[in-house]
C-alpha cells in the first residue's frame, strides 16, 4: 500500500492506495496541510479484483466506513475516489460535531453557512467568497460544536464541477488546481486548493451568524425561512443528527433559534455575492 496522511480541520486521515498516482496527487494538493501521526479514519483505494490492478485498473472505495454498493471508479479518477472516501468517513463515522452538508465562510469571527441540494451552488459560492475578502471554512461539511455552538472549519480541497471550473480559474488564476477529471459520474470535476489563510487558520472557528439556502438558475429573489422549516431542512442535511441524540437536538435547536435564515435565488456569481453582502450587512 502506498500511503499518505493528512489533517483537515479536526479530522485526520490515513489514505492507502494500491497505486502510486492518487497518492502523489494528494501529496501535491495537500502539501500545505499538517501530516499527523494519529489518524481518525483509514481510507483504502484497492483494485476490485487482483487483475484490476493492472488491467483497466478500477478503484474500489474502501475504509473504516463503507457503503456496500459504492461503485468503483477508473484509476484516472483515483483522486476523486480518495476524496469521496474521505467524505464518506466523515458522513458515516464523525460524531464529535453535528455535521451539516453545507459550505461556510467567515468574516470578523462570524460565520455564513450555506446549504442546499447539489447544484444549488453552495460550493462554488463559498469558493468565490473565499477570494472576495472572506475566509473559506469548507465547501462540503459544516461542523457545529455541541458545546460552544460554533462552526469548526473543515477546509478540504474544493471540488469544482463543470462550468464552475472555468469561473474559478478566472477568479483565482494563481490557485493550485488538481488534474481535470473528465466524465465522472458527476460530470467534469477539478479540485482546487483552498486559499492559504483557510489552511493556516483551520483550527479557528467562529459563531454562526447567517444561514442561506442558495438556489442557482432562478431570477434573483430573497425569501424568509421560518424556523420550523429551517429545522426540518437541516435535519435532512445532517448525516449524524439522529446518532448524536440529545446533543444533536440541543445543538440544532440552538442554531435554528439564534441564526437568521433566508432562501436566495440567483443567476450569476456576481449577483449572488452582491445579495450575500447585502443580507450580511442587514442581518448578521
Amino acid at each position, binding site marked *: *500500500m502506498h500511503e499518505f496522511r493528512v489533517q483537515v480541520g479536526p479530522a*485526520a486521515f*490515513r489514505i*492507502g492506495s494500491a497505486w502510486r498516482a492518487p497518492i502523489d496527487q494528494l501529496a501535491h494538493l495537500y502539501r500545505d496541510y499538517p501530516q499527523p*501521526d*494519529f*489518524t*481518525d479514519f*483509514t481510507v*483504502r483505494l*484497492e483494485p476490485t479484483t487482483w487483475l484490476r490492478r493492472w488491467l483497466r485498473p478500477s478503484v474500489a472505495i*474502501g*475504509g*473504516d*466506513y463503507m457503503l456496500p454498493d459504492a461503485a468503483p471508479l477508473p484509476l484516472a479518477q483515483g483522486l476523486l475516489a480518495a476524496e469521496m472516501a474521505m467524505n464518506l468517513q466523515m458522513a458515516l*463515522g*464523525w*460524531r*464529535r460535531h453535528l455535521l451539516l452538508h453545507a459550505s461556510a465562510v467567515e468574516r470578523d469571527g462570524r460565520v455564513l453557512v450555506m446549504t442546499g441540494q447539489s447544484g444549488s451552488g453552495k460550493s462554488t459560492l463559498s469558493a468565490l467568497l473565499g477570494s472576495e475578502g472572506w475566509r473559506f471554512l469548507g465547501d462540503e461539511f459544516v461542523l457545529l460544536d455541541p458545546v460552544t455552538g460554533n462552526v469548526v472549519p473543515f477546509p478540504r480541497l474544493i471540488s469544482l464541477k463543470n462550468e464552475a471550473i472555468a469561473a474559478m480559474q478566472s477568479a483565482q488564476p494563481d490557485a493550485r488546481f488538481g488534474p481535470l477529471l473528465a466524465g465522472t459520474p458527476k460530470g467534469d470535476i477539478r479540485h482546487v486548493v483552498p486559499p492559504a489563510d483557510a489552511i493556516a487558520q483551520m483550527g479557528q472557528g467562529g459563531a454562526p451568524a447567517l444561514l442561506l439556502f442558495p438556489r442557482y438558475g432562478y431570477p434573483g429573489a430573497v425569501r424568509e425561512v421560518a424556523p420550523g422549516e429551517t429545522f426540518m431542512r437541516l435535519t435532512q442535511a445532517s448525516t449524524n443528527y*439522529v*446518532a*448524536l*441524540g440529545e*446533543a444533536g437536538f440541543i445543538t440544532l435547536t440552538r442554531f435554528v433559534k439564534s441564526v437568521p435564515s433566508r432562501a436566495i435565488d440567483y443567476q450569476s456569481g456576481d449577483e449572488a455575492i452582491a445579495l450575500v453582502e447585502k443580507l450580511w450587512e442587514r442581518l448578521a
Partner: protein
Amino acid sequence: MSRDAMLLVDALRDPATTRGLDAQGWTELLSMARAEQLVGTLAERLKIESVPPKVAEILAEARINADYQHRSALWEADCARRALAGYGGKVVLLKGTAYVASGLKAGEGRSIGDLDILVARDDLSQVEEALLDSGWEWVKPDPYDDAYYRDHMHELPPLIHKERDRMIDVHHTILPLTARRRPDAVAMLGRSKPLPFRGGVGAGPVSVAQGLTSPTPDPSPEGEGRLHTLAPTDMVCHSAAHLFADGDLAGGLRNLWDIHCLLSEFSTPDFWPSLGERANLHQLSEPVERAVRLAHQLYGTQIPQEWAGWDRQDKWYVARLTARDGWGRPTRQFIRLIFYIRSHWLRMPLLMLARHLWVKWRKG
C-alpha cells in the same frame, strides 16, 4: 504490516496490552476494531486505561455511536412489543438487543443492527399480520425470495418499518430448516424468561441502560405482555449456533466476544453441566464446545477442565477469525474461501444451494 487481528483480540482480552502501542499501532488497532464491528466494545474495555488524547476522542465517539444503537434497538423492541400487545404468545428478543435489554456485559458497547425476535412457529402468520398492521412491510416483494425464505430459512422474509426504516427478523427457530442440526425451538421458548419489567413509558429500574422500563407495577407476574429473553444456557447455544452457522464466520470475533461475556457472567458450578445437556438437546454440542474452546483460547474465558482441550481443526478457526490486517483489510483469502464454502454446506444441502444460485444468476 505483518499484524493480524490478534492485536485486537489481545486488547479486548487484556486492555493493558495497549500500553505499549505507538501511533501506528493504535491506528491499526482501531481500523481492525471498526472492520470487526468491535470498536464500541473496545471503547468499553479501554475505559479504565489511560490512552493518548487522540485515541480518547475516537473512543468517545464510539461510545456515542453505541449509545445511539442501543437506544434505537431498545426502542425498536418496544415498538414491536406494542405492535404485538394483542398477541398472547411469548416474544423472545435475540442477540444484541437481548443482551442490552437484560443489562448483560455482552451488550456493553456492542454494535446492533436489525431487531431479531423468536416466536412459536404456529403463530407466525398471526405475528406477521400484527406487524403488517403496525407499519412494517416486506423488504423484498420478490416471490422467489419470499418462497425461499418461507420454505428453507428459519425466519420470515425480513420486514422493514416504513417510517422508522428499521428491519425486524422474525424467527421461529434459530437455524435454517435446511441445516443438519435441529435446535429445539419449542424448548427454547418454553424456558425463556420475561424481562424484569413490563416495558412501556417512563423510567424504571434499568434506566441507566435506557432499558425497556416502566414505573407501573407489573400486574401479571407470569410476564404477560412483557418481552422475553432466552434462558442463559439457551442464550449460549444460540450464540454458538449463530457464530458458526451465519455466513462465513463474518463478524466472528464479535460473536465470539458475546460468547466470552455470556460464559463469564453465567459461570457457576451448576451452569456448565446444564449447558452441556442443553447443547445436546439442541443438537449443538459440537458448535457449543468449539465456541467454548475458542473463547478460552482467544479471550481467556475461564472454563472448567472438562471443557478445555483442543481439536485439530481449531487452529483453522483461529486463523480465520483473526484474518485481518492493519489496514482493516480481510486477509488469508484461501482460508476465508474454505469457510465460505463450508458455511453454505452447513446451511443447506448442495443441490438446493445450486438451485438457489442458479435462480439468482438468471435473474441477474
